[in-house]
């Protein structure tokens, strides 16, 4: 007999385990399921990273307003003005007309200063209010670069409550010891900004 035929017969006489096909199918299905689970886990991880990244980004934008509140407001580097016309004059023709409605719409708070100021190279229109919890700043500044607050955001940063929102060209921040969402709403109405 040809050795090749003898060998072929012997090798192919080996009985195949009855459960081998099922085992292979199970291991393939297991791997395929793990692939989907892995994909879902990856997506979940991406979502977590995205949310965490967005939070870091939001805080970094809100700090733009907080900087003005801390350096100009809490640092008392602002002119205290007794008269509303002084404040309007300090803001100039574009923002001066806001002084009266700001005074009327902010019950419980007393407007003590309205001025233009710089923190670093950034210019702000800055309203400073005095209330039972200390100073509250409403800071308005032009958007720069990729700064973006598509919806109103509120965070506590360095012990201060900061609320921020945006218009096409400006970002508005309300910074204070206690969050003041009502004030933010009123400011929004005064400014006529749309969200």
């Amino acid at each position, binding site marked *: *007999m*040809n*050795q*090749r035929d*003898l*060998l*072929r*017969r*012997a*090798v*192919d*006489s*080996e009985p*195949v*385990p009855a459960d*081998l*096909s099922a*085992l*292979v*199918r199970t*291991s*393939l299905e297991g*791997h*395929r399921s793990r692939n989907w689970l892995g994909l879902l886990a990856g997506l979940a991880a991406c979502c977590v990273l995205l949310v965490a990244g967005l939070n870091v980004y939001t805080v970094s934008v809100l700090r733009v307003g907080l900087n003005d509140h801390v350096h100009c407001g809490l640092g008392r580097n602002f002119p205290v003005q007794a008269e509303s016309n002084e404040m309007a004059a300090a803001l100039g023709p574009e923002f001066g007309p806001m002084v009266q409605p700001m005074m009327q719409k902010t019950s419980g708070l007393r407007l003590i200063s309205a001025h233009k100021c710089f923190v670093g190279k950034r210019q702000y229109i800055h309203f400073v209010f005095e209330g039972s919890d200390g100073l509250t700043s409403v800071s308005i500044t032009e958007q720069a670069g990729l700064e973006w607050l598509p919806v109103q955001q509120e965070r506590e940063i360095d012990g201060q409550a900061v609320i921020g929102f945006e218009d096409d060209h400006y970002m508005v921040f309300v910074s204070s010891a206690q969050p003041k969402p009502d004030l933010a709403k009123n400011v929004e109405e005064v400014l006529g900004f749309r969200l």
Partner: protein
Amino acid sequence: MFFQRKDRRDEFDREALPWLDEIYRTAAGLLGNRDHAADLAQDVYLNAWKSYDRFEPGTNIRAWLHKILVHRAAHFRRKLYREQPFGNKEEETQDIPEEITVPDHFSDRQVNDALGRLQAPYREVILLSDVREFAYKEIAEMLEIPIGTVMSRLSRARKQLRQELDTVARERGLG
């Protein structure tokens, strides 16, 4: 995308799974152990599925599965038996390996045992050539060695197998 993937899965199952028995038996011949052969067959199919995106539809899936088999078998042997790579210098030959005639009174078990006593590289080529009937060129591609080496290994494998069978015959008083 999900449906595309499902189509590929169905295609893989349809094309590859019919070769499972053959893959298992070749694995048993390569490893000489049924339990390890079953593990190896599962491993081959898992690896085949993982790399199925690289398989060109319409090409020879049987040869592709056997290529994965010999590579995974080498990995198994290194892991299980701490086998050293076959590093001997081999003399290549272009001679067509001789066919050998043997008495037909050997049992399948005796033949399989004799096969198991060959060195792994000889077992590989004799299984792929004489049992699975792949062409020398296909075997050379599977094992990533020159055709001349395939032929020389096959020649030696056939002779060694014949010697092993002769030994069996003498021990058992056959022939």
